[in-house]
Structure formats: structure tokens, C-alpha cells
């Protein structure tokens, strides 16, 4: 995955301090020349300097690099509970891959993942953007309310899911009680117990969780847009909607890309929300790539097949990682 995009050039995370333009790693030689005028001393120091970075590097190799490689290798092995006793994981070629790709659940989960991800992103983003625009107005308590709105994003996802399970309960849930009270749903909607509704409910909950993140980043982006542009647009007789389309959206584009790509990365692999909300059910209607990986590896204890689905997830993430990096680069190019 890392080798897929060898030269990042000068990309940086989007919402970063402007001080980065004074990045010292770009002007390395000039700087070190000042501290170490004579060459031998500099070489000795160079090793010393690496000592600062090496522990983190070693850790990342063990906790990110190793799993990536191991996962690829495992996907070609028969890796089952017996492996833990015998220590043997025989190579079986493409057996795991064939088994996974011919498994109907895999195709279903791929589709669910796509629907879940796109649905969540559209909801989170539009509501997040609307709130960001709304809170850009200046009024009393704006800052405090904006801060409190962050709470759903800070609470552990499992906990949110458990609370929503209570809210969405078909017989005792408050949502159905409220709907019945206003006469909108007679028998109560089977939010989590009907295969045709459960995925939609999961999307709804995930939208709720993701709104704060979208709002905060987009709000930050909106603050960067110079006020004068809106004044100029107003002078030209542009309606607020026209100003939004012609000023806000184009200038917000780099931030929008980053928000969407980051949202995608966190949504496509989601596991805890769905496990705690529906456990993938009813009738596998909420199984996604994340839950199928978990199920294959840790419930059916077929780590080889779990690794296959995991690799599919990696490939999907890698594609969007490249998009993310390109977006950051474009952002950096604008001199921000």
C-alpha cells in the first residue's frame, strides 16, 4: 500500500497551521550547517538524531507494517485453530480467495458496505455542511452549542449504538412511541428487526455519529473564506443561494474532499457500530466487509478467509488513500 504512491512530494494534512511553510526538513542542510560546522561531528550527531525517530518507526513497523504483510501471507494459508496447536499453516494457493469470492455473504456484504458508506456520507456531509453554514452566523451561545454538539462523536461508538438500540426498539423504543403518538406509524416500525429496514437504521445512526466531525471541519473551512468575497457577491446582486454555489462551494472544495475521504475511510471499515446495533442481522442484512472479516476470523476461526476480506478492505482503502493524498497536495498547492 505504501509503495503504491512512492513520492508524496509536499503534501500535508489539510487543516494545518500556516507555519508549515517554514518546514525545516525542506531546508535541512542550511540548518544543520549552522549547528555543526565540521563534518565528523555532524555524522556522529546524525545517528543521535535518528534515535529520536527510531522507536516510533520500529513500533509502526510492528503494528502497521507487519499486519499488512502478514495479512497478505495469511490469505494464502489455511490458518485455523489447529494452527495454534501444531504451528502449521500450510499454503493452499488461492483456496481462501475462491472460497470467499464464491460465498454469497461476501457479495451481499460488499453491496451493504457500498450502500452503508454512500448513505452515511451523503447524510453526514449534507447535515454537517448545513450546520456549519448555520453556525457561521454570529449569535449568542453559538460557540457553546457548537461544542456540546460534539458529544455524539466523542462517546464510544459501541455506547452510542447501545443507546440507539434502546431508542429504536420496536415495542418499547421511544421513536416508535413518538411516531404512534402523532399517528405516523400504527404497528411500530421494526427499525432493527426487519431485514429491509435494519441497514437504513444503521445508516441513520452512523449519520448521527458523523455529523459533528463533518460540521467541525467544514466550519473551519468556512472561516477561511474571506468575508469580502461575500460582500462583493452581494454588490453584484447575487442571492444567498447563488453566493453559496459560486463562492462557498468552490473555495471549500479542498476541505470538502478531505472530509469526504476521511469519512469514507472511517465508514467503509466500520465494525463496532454494527456489531452492537444489529450483530450483522437480521438475516445478515447489515453484514459489511468489516463484520464479515470479524466473523470469518474470530467466530468461524478461519483466519485465512478473514484475511482475504481484510485484503479487499485494504485495496478499497488504498484507492481512497491515494485520492486523499492527491486532495491534500492540491490543497498544499494553493499555498494554504
Amino acid at each position, binding site marked *: 500500500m505504501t509503495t503504491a504512491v512512492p513520492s508524496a512530494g509536499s503534501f500535508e*494534512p489539510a487543516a494545518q497551521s500556516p507555519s508549515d511553510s517554514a518546514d525545516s*526538513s525542506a531546508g535541512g542542510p542550511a540548518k544543520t550547517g549552522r549547528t555543526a560546522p565540521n563534518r565528523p561531528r555532524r555524522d556522529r550527531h546524525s545517528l543521535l538524531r535518528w534515535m529520536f525517530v527510531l522507536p516510533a518507526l520500529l*513500533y509502526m513497523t510492528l503494528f502497521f507494517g507487519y499486519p499488512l504483510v502478514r495479512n497478505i501471507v495469511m490469505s494464502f494459508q489455511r490458518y485455523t485453530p489447529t494452527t495454534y496447536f501444531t504451528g502449521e499453516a500450510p499454503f493452499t494457493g488461492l483456496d481462501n480467495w475462491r472460497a470467499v469470492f464464491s460465498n454469497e455473504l461476501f457479495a451481499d456484504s460488499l453491496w451493504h458496505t457500498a450502500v452503508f458508506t454512500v448513505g452515511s456520507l451523503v447524510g453526514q456531509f449534507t447535515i454537517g455542511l448545513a450546520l456549519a453554514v448555520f453556525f457561521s452566523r454570529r449569535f449568542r451561545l453559538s460557540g457553546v452549542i457548537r461544542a456540546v454538539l460534539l458529544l455524539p462523536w466523542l462517546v464510544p461508538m459501541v455506547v452510542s449504538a447501545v443507546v440507539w438500540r*434502546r431508542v429504536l426498539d420496536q415495542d418499547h423504543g421511544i421513536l416508535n412511541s413518538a411516531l404512534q403518538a402523532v399517528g405516523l406509524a400504527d404497528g411500530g416500525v421494526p427499525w432493527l428487526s426487519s431485514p429491509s429496514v435494519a441497514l437504513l437504521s444503521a445508516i441513520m445512526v452512523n449519520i448521527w455519529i458523523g455529523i459533528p466531525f463533518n460540521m467541525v471541519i467544514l466550519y473551519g473551512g468556512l472561516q477561511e473564506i474571506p468575508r469580502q468575497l461575500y460582500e462583493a457577491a452581494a454588490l453584484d446582486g447575487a442571492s444567498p443561494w447563488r453566493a453559496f454555489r459560486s463562492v462557498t462551494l468552490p473555495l471549500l472544495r479542498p476541505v470538502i474532499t478531505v472530509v469526504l475521504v476521511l469519512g469514507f475511510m472511517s465508514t467503509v471499515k466500520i465494525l*463496532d457500530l454494527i456489531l452492537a446495533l444489529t450483530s450483522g442481522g437480521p438475516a445478515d442484512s447489515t453484514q459489511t466487509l468489516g463484520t464479515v472479516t470479524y466473523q470469518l476470523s474470530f467466530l468461524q476461526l478461519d483466519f485465512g478467509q478473514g484475511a482475504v476480506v481484510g485484503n479487499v478492505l*485494504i485495496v478499497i482503502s488504498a484507492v481512497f488513500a491515494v485520492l486523499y493524498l492527491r486532495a491534500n497536495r492540491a490543497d498544499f498547492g494553493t499555498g494554504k
Partner: protein
Amino acid sequence: MKRPSSLRGAWNTTAALLILGFLLFPVYWMLNTALQPDTSITATEWFPTSLSLSNFDAAVSSQGRSLLTSLVVALGAVVVCLALAAPAAYGLAQFGLRGGRSIVFTTLITQMVPGIVIANALYSAYAELGLVNSYLGLILADASLGLPFSIVLLRAFMVSIPGEVVEAALVDGANRFTAFTRIVLPMSRNALITAGLFTFLFAWSDFMFALTLNTTDDVKPITLGIYQFVGAHVSDWGAVMATAVLSAVPAAILLVLAQKYIAAGISGGSIK
């Protein structure tokens, strides 16, 4: 003159409060259910008219240990993460190391590796190393949730530290390491708090590693605790919701006490 705008301001505030009430309703419902006794028998009231803390008694007695476990694991993860991230970020920000840029680049990429993939491979490695069902194993795994973020965030801050400040210390006889701990770390206090805060939140919220790297109840963080609790006692919603309230407490406290760091963290680093 002032009237129209203040009227509009009041209207905006009202609208904002309505949005808040609407979006935070599930949080209210969690608190409301937790404060009502006997929620299993009767329907939950809209307001907790007869306040009772009995649910919290039940929550603490069955999940108290898990809360403690979460605290230990999350604090451990913060220590490991900052101990690794702070020097690395400083090295990457100030030393002009050859290949430094590709390291920063790789760091960003690692944030995109799906956690379940890491868990999948880590479990087999942990099984061989005897790290399954251990505090150390979970702390080390949870530290990975905050490390890339912390490196990126701290580095972004540390590039703005003038090299002259450190050089002055070096001239005064300090070595690189003492200059780092005495000068750079205190100067980076706010960034360190932000990174530590988020690592704590990530580790406290972690469910995947808790679920996959533990096969017994020896090391059971609260996220795993509430997951099992709701599976086994789904009729006792009052106690489940009280547990949910307790497990949301760190987020609520941090939101109140460290609001500016939270906001800075969300927009300052590219968070998962």
C-alpha cells in the same frame, strides 16, 4: 437601529438550541432511562419523575471493574503513544533527516489501515508471544490508534519552534536529549495535551482490539463490558443505560474542561 439584528440573533439562538435538542435527544434518553427505576416493567417516562440511582448501583457493581480496566488501558496507551510520538515528531520537524518526508507520508498512510486487518494479524502474533488477554498487549495495540495522529499533530506544531531556542540550550552545555525534555516538551505543552487527549479518547472508545485480543474476562474494557452486558441483560435497560452514562463520562468531562483542545484536535490533525 439595533433591533432587527438582535431579533435575528435571538431567533438564531433559538434555532440552534432546537437543533441541539434534536441531535442530543439520544444522549438525553440515555440519561433519562438510567435515572428511572424499573424501566424493564413499565414504559420509560419522558422525564425521570421518581429519581433513582439504583441503576447506577447495578452498573457499578457489575461494570465497575471494566471502567477501571478502561482507565488503566487508556492511560497506558497515552503514555506509550506520547513517549514514542513526541521525540519522533521533534526529530521529523527539526532535524532535517534524510527520508524524513517519506516517514511523515507513511505515518499518514498508516491511519488508513483498517483496524480489523491489524487485529487479524496481531491476534496470531499475540498468540505466539503470549500477549493475548494481557494489559500490556491491549495497551500496545491501543497506542497504535493515536500514534500516527499524534506524530502528525505534534510535528505540525514543532516545526514552528525556532531552532535557535534549542541551539542556545546546546551552547549552554545541554545535550540533544535534555534540550528536548527541558525546552521542547514544555514549549509543546498544548500540542501534547491535545495529542494525549485524543489518544485517551481513541483508546477509551476502542472496541475492536478489546473484542479480538481478549478471549477471557481478565482484561475487559468498558466497551466490551457494555457489549456483553446488553447481550445478556437486554431486559434491564436501566442498568445498561447507567453503564452507558458512566462510559460516556470521560468524553463529557473532556468536552467541558478541554473544549479548545478538542476543537483544535479535530481540525488540526487528520483524524480517522
